[in-house]
């Protein structure tokens, strides 16, 4: 699957409180959450984000709380994937579970600038910076994660476990 969009660039340790502040955690509707996405560090984000755009950030993206509202808000805002130097572990699981692709690629994260256009081939992990004419390679997912993703995500994977138990 090919993704293409403009870069919104942030630094290291973007935490889930700035992605979606605590005061909005009574919301569960993705569209409502998206209106407040990144409000803690970029109050204009919800207005300027375009469909397919890409968040690029430093190390430990998504640190902090376990709120699944964070990747839900990012996905519903139109962001097609997040590229970072590294991800916090709970955020990583949550994003995979809700279908927000993440790519770990320190070089692309460092060299891409806000407003650049990126093209990402998810199956190979290839990232092309069209604006700068550069190519990067993201870390591949472990086999286990690939199986989980190709099964249609954790919910589908779990449905199969439950079905096997019922028939077993």
């Amino acid at each position, binding site marked *: 699957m090919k993704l293409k969009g403009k870069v919104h660039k942030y630094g290291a*340790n973007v*935490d889930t*409180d*700035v992605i979606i*502040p*605590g*005061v909005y*955690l*009574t*919301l*569960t509707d993705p569209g409502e959450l998206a209106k407040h996405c990144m*409000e*803690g*560090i970029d*109050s204009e984000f919800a207005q300027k984000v375009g469909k397919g755009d890409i968040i690029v950030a430093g*190390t*430990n993206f998504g*640190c*902090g*709380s*376990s*709120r*699944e*509202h964070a*990747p*839900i808000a990012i996905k519903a805002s139109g962001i097609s994937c997040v590229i970072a130097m*590294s991800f*916090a*572990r*709970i955020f990583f*699981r*949550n994003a995979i*579970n*809700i279908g927000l692709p993440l790519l770990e690629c320190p070089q692309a994260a460092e060299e891409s600038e806000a407003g650049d256009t990126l093209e990402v081939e998810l199956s190979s992990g290839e990232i092309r910076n069209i604006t700068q004419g550069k190519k990067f390679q993201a870390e591949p997912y*472990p086999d*286990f994660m690939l199986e*989980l993703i190709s099964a249609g995500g*954790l*919910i589908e*994977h*779990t*449905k199969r*476990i*439950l079905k096997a*138990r019922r028939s077993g």
Partner: protein
Amino acid sequence: MTLAEKILAAHSGKKRVSPGEFITVRVDLVMANDITAPIAIREFERLGTDAVFDPQRVVMVTDHNVPAKDILAAENAKLLRDFAHQHGLVYLDGGEFGIEHVVLPEQGLVLPGDVVVGADSHTCTYGALGSFATGMGSTDIACAMATGEIWMKVPPTIKFVYHGRAKKWVTAKDLILYTIGDIGVDGALYAAMEFWGEAIAELSMDGRFTMANMAIEAGAKVGLFRTDEKTVEYVKSRARRPYQVYEPDEDSQYSKVVEYDVSLIEPQVAFPHLPSNTRGISEVGEVRIDQAVIGSCTNGRLEDLRLAAQVLRGRKVHPEVRCLIIPGSQEVYLQALREGLAEVFVQAGATVTMPTCGPCGGFHMGVLAPGERCIATTNRNFVGRMGSPKSEVYLANPAIAAASAILGRIGGPEEVMG
């Protein structure tokens, strides 16, 4: 094998597990709260099953937005309550019990050697009991509720050894803040932290909960203490089921060993906007405050309130400071009443509230205005954590927070107690 590996091997039916390995783990307890349960319930209903794996091992807690701050919060709490009753789950109402990570151990729901997954990042608090407890999101929790199992990647273990004896006013909070200040907010990313040393053996259970609670603030999956006589004494009267104690092997493979001499550590203050941005209290300088919060899943236990009361007794909160004191549970609250601590607080001009996560996450009951500064015994000081993105949060232990409330600026107990 390390303690983390021992527990994971036993829960995955394997003789041994190694860091990096993907395994399916049997869970002893699954938990969600009024923030995370609504999405978990929505995902659970997509699974097409009508039963959880074991109703006595699924716990629902209302504690973040209690008492309900608005209609949406009330709807979420109702959704959780109805689901819990429909499925016969363990339901802990905030008004009757308190903050999840204080209450679950108190109620004997979490025990040594357990694997616990909770839809709250501070689920790692139970590492104090020697339980492999870790936070996850709502979808993972929905699936664990249905199947009683979860996939995990076995983490590498970093061993932290704390030598020596802590100085006066240096608490478990200071040891963990100092550690995070040293290794950074991703210093233990994806790893298990294992706590050792004579300073760790000295810590009370309350102190150990404080330390384990903040393992996530270093990016860790768990923060584990070995089970000793203090742990056994704590769970003895609380446990409702048998439990198994695991010990790390002598030839455990650690990815790193970090050692500290705690006698050299002074009380720590984490400056905005990261828990790793720490300084010793002597290096704080002049930082005026508008609010002090003493409580939370980090420091809302009896020992914390006793420490705050020791500093506040017979003194007055600075006229320009709002001081909120939040017992972590009704059990803690009741004991604080019996010991006269609540009276000390009210006479000092502080507000004592019911147990709630309210101010810590900027939810309600103590939200900050732009430009305001707060010293808090909580665990996070990210931008906007307690309210306006233009407010500031400083993290410290309860004695420092209490002294600062009196001084109107960040300072230590020596300054007010002489």
